[in-house]
């Protein structure tokens, strides 16, 4: 059953660009990018239980690194994607070393402040980011072939997404993944089991930054323009909402949340002034009535319905 569903999803994803309009393919690229962003947030918040609110900053670092790798160095695509992830992870490591001395709300505030500071850097560092004018992203090239539209970018974006989903699963099942959950559940018990709590938190933080950096590189593949305005707290909250809507701590929830909520947010673009109010409301409603996320909520109610 599960495998059939997976195959159907794969088939759908493969034929999608063949049967749909350019806008739908663009949307698919965007949703896949958000999926990777959500996986990153899932690792640090859902798995390791560390409230990091700097996802948009690492996303931005990924986008600009990728842009720079293309224009200034002319690196091939796989290398620039990897570089985007690594630079984001490196910055994450530095910030994490400082911020992870704090916990809970203090950690959230520290990472929030870092995110805001990074947005200011994006706005001011004109040679790299174009500053307030934004940056035109040159087309990426893969094996000498230039990617100039969404349809050409789609297979690459999809491949990276699948790779990142696979990586998330491998990490979750590994020794490190178990250490993440141990730290989330009880730091003192984790210590007694020989888990180095601080290193584990740092690993989660850096990995989540790596994911966000790769998501940034994905965005740079199909996008032609980036402005620092879209790399602020708003984006972090959007990703957080996706992860919460999908179900905090659930891997498939993070993916489902990215897709369902990504669609909602795309619809809401028609009404930009209400967008944030609606995000906020959705976040509150879910935390109150479906804290385990949309899919667990539907599942529970279906079960109750079946029993009645």
């Amino acid at each position, binding site marked *: 059953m599960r495998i059939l569903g997976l195959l159907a999803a794969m088939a759908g994803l493969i034929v999608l660009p063949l049967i749909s309009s350019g806008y739908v393919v663009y949307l698919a690229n965007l949703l896949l990018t958000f999926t990777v962003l959500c996986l990153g947030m899932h690792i640090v918040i859902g798995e390791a239980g560390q409230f990091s609110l700097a996802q948009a900053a690492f996303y931005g670092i990924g986008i600009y690194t990728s842009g720079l790798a293309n224009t200034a160095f002319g690196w091939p695509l796989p290398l620039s994607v990897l570089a985007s992830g690594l630079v984001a992870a490196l910055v994450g490591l530095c910030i994490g070393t400082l911020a992870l001395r704090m916990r809970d709300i203090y950690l959230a505030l520290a990472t929030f402040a870092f995110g805001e500071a990074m947005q200011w850097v994006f706005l001011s560092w004109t040679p790299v980011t174009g500053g307030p004018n934004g940056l035109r992203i040159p087309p990426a090239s893969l094996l000498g072939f230039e990617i100039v539209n969404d349809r050409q970018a789609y297979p690459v974006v999809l491949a990276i997404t699948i790779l990142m989903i696979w990586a998330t699963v491998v990490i979750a099942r*590994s020794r490190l993944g178990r250490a993440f959950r141990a730290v989330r559940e009880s730091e003192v018990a984790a210590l007694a089991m020989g888990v180095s709590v601080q290193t584990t938190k740092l690993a989660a933080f850096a990995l989540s930054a790596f994911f966000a950096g790769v998501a940034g590189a994905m965005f740079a593949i199909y996008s032609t323009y980036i402005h620092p305005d879209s790399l602020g707290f708003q984006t972090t909250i959007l990703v957080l909402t996706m992860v919460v809507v999908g179900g905090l701590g659930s891997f498939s929830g993070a993916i489902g949340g990215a897709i369902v909520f990504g669609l909602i947010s795309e619809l809401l673009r028609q009404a930009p002034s209400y967008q944030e109010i609606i995000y906020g409301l959705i976040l509150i409603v879910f935390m109150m009535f479906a804290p385990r996320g949309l899919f667990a909520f539907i599942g529970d109610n279906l079960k109750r319905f079946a029993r009645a």
Partner: protein
Amino acid sequence: MRKELLKVENVTVRFGGLVAVNDFSLNVAQGTIHALIGPNGAGKSTTFNCISRFYQPTSGRIVFDDTDITHAPASEMARYGIARSFQNLELFNELTVLENVMIGAHVHCGGSLPDRLQAKPPAVMRHIEEVIERTGLGPYREHKARNLDFGHQKLLELARALAIRPRLLLLDEPAAGLRNREIASLDRLLTDLVRTDGLTVLIVEHVMQLVMSISDRVTVLNFGTKIAEGTPQEVRNDPAVIEAYLGKEAAHA
């Protein structure tokens, strides 16, 4: 003469002006069960937390297997082969019994990168399954820790500690809140672990029924100072112990 596996030498712990533990020394011989008892607030848990490196003694030394561990970090204890349980349950609540025990085996899941990436390292799984069976948690393998009843949660604390494959097991009130039947099976399990597996156990416990039955030696603390030490029989008849527990009149009665 048995080797002294753990030596606590003249340990003093001060919290501000309060002396919680005063010049306390203790030797635990390999392959024995040593109980640390005393009235509430006697400094048992403080001593216990010093040995497991969660507290830092103000002065004194803690030596494990001839290695000075007075300044070793708590996260290193599992590697030394020292495991502990927690008085007020510190389980990984949202994780399954199996996962809880697997995290207990954390230090044995290291090695090369492919080894670290394994979901169920075969070399470790055999021991884990054995621990789960031995503690009677087999039927609950896939249950979340928070859904277990209290008795099984206590057992899971023990199972997780055993997954470390410890040489020294530190148990902080493992019998507190257990029913008589559960205490009896804990008694059997601990005795078996020491007799057949050669484990060494230091246990802080209030349940005298268990202490008197399993301990090879008992140390009694009161107001942070050792007031008696000996076999369960000796300690039971010691006037200073009776006084500490029941008051002066009882001691002279």
